[in-house]
């Protein structure tokens, strides 16, 4: 558990002159300064817009509309945030950001968990069972990798309309739930599980379900965690499908609502609330990444075998 912490640790001071043993072979001291300069530049480029959004979210609409925008946070933090979270935003029919966050959380969780369940089960079937047309099914799944959601969006939409699933969580989640990528990922992982382990479990009296529950799931923990992070963010940032399948304002996801809040006319847009919503939209994915990063990193780098 030491490695992930090291990643999060604050950048350490440059090693003292005597600390050459800490340097990588062939690395000069000047090289370290250059590397750090580049890293810091990168961080500034990425972080500044987010900081600026935060600053804007703490000023009144008038301040925002009268450039230049100050570089330091204003005094309207509490007012702006409580207005957005609990009051409702005018341009999206008075729906509060709390509702939007709730919707998006349901959708992102639904997509992430649903995708994991479906893909781990299909990978389990494909790797550990011999049944007719096994390879055909595998290739069918594999081929769908090459089809983006956009290609099948019209037929899918038609199906959703016929089933009356417009403006429902089911309609938002289910069409996005099948995942060839995750299935392949689990398949590759399952293939690395030694055959002897499977046989040992059989000798120990574990049937297919027990083997899955007692051996496969615990071994897949880190993979599941890594996938969860990726898929949660994938679900959270979905744009096209939620845009099509929701009409009611109170069923919008936060990304769609954000788009709706912005009018062509600058004066008509409640920019301070847009900024607040942007900030709030960023928070959950960040939380997921930060809280799960330990697992995420482990899932990507090592397997417990």
């Amino acid at each position, binding site marked *: 558990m030491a490695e992930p912490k090291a990643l999060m640790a604050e950048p350490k001071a440059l090693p003292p002159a005597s600390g050459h043993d800490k340097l990588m072979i062939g690395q000069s001291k000047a090289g370290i300064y250059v590397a750090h300069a580049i890293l810091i530049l990168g961080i500034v480029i990425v972080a500044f817009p987010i900081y600026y959004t935060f600053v804007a979210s703490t000023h009144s609409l008038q301040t925002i509309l009268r450039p230049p925008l100050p570089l330091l946070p204003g005094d309207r933090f509490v007012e702006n945030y409580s207005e957005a979270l609990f009051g409702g935003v005018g341009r999206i029919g008075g729906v509060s950001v709390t509702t939007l966050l709730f919707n998006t959380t349901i959708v992102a969780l639904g997509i992430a968990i649903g995708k994991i369940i479906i893909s781990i089960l299909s990978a389990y079937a494909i790797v550990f069972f011999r049944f007719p047309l096994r390879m055909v099914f595998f290739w069918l799944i594999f081929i769908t990798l090459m089809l983006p959601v956009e290609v099948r969006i019209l037929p899918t939409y038609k199906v959703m309309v016929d089933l009356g699933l417009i403006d429902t969580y089911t309609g938002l989640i289910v069409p996005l739930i099948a995942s060839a990528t995750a299935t392949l990922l689990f398949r590759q992982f399952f293939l690395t599980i030694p055959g002897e382990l499977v046989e*040992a479990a059989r*000798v*120990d*009296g574990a049937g297919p379900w*027990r083997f899955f529950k007692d051996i496969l799931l615990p*071994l897949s923990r880190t993979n599941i965690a890594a996938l969860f992070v990726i898929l949660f963010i994938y679900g959270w940032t979905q744009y096209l499908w939620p845009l099509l399948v929701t009409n009611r304002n109170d069923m919008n996801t936060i990304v769609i609502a954000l788009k709706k809040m912005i009018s062509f006319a600058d004066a008509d847009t409640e920019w301070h609330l847009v900024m607040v919503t942007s900030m709030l939209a960023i928070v959950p994915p960040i939380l997921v990444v930060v809280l799960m990063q330990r697992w995420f990193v482990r899932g990507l780098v090592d397997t*417990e075998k």
Partner: protein
Amino acid sequence: MATVDLKDVRKVYAGGVEAVKGVSIAIPDKALCVLVGPSGCGKSTLLRMIAGLETISAGTCSIDGKVVNAIGPTERDIAMVFQNYALYPHMKVYDNMAYGLRNRGTPKDEIDKRVRATAQTLELEHLLERRPRELSGGQRQRVAMGRAIVRNPKVFLFDEPLSNLDAKLRGQMRVEIKSLQRKLGVTSVYVTHDQLEAMTLADVLVVMNAGLVEQLGAPLDIYEKPASTFVASFIGAPPMNLLPLRGGQLEDAITLPEVSGNATMIGFRPEDCEVGADGATSSDGLRLMARVDGVEPVGSESFLYCAAGGGKIVVRVAGRTEVLVGDQLPIFARREKLHFFGSDGKRV
């Protein structure tokens, strides 16, 4: 507790490859049967068929008098120790051992009692809370054994369990497995390609080659009377010296006893050779001239690698030797230590 009976067991794979071509072995109760042979001889396949991990293409396998062809590994009441141990990496040692019992619905306190008793037998008590990756190779091996023992099955199956250990540990574990098997009195089948393991462990030794049983019997009987040139060269280290006979005559031979039947091969073990002209006065044996090509002193004994009789032979001499490379030596082997094989490789 149980006998294992194989009757004309065959294994044909989907591609038409016949891995086991009709094997019949009867393993008595409480015996340790070792299947030995070179890789690809079908010994592992045979073991896996007994375990129920491979289907049996033809013939029957019975455990305790009951034909088990159609039933799965769980119901056969066997326990298996795998080459790579196959411990569940995410479970503690305790859970690794308890898992099979839990799946069989054994009561919790009974599981605890048995796991702790087994751990005590194998000196694993202080490791029960560790995970497999925190253990050394030898300890993992013990846990794998413990997982088999704790279930108290009818039959133990060992699939080359010692091949991943270093030589010293292997010797240690070999002795331990033997005494444990004696103590528990569980019928066991043990697969190995190591002839030393086979010799020292077996009550019943089965030498396999190309999917068939080449010879079956007590280890020392097989050592003393190998049924074929294959067995002769497989059992014993270094292997038996085999030299070709042409028309009942051997090249370089000074004296050669009467050749029995229509033998085309003469064999004698390295340890049955006597070196030097004054070795034995009896002419009733094989005496031939050999040129020393190499000398390997091991300490307690030395091996002389020689060219003789139109082939290569190894001669074992006790202790150190003054023999040098290039020396010409007379080699003597007594009549009763000679083995003769026919043109089909079988003993005559």
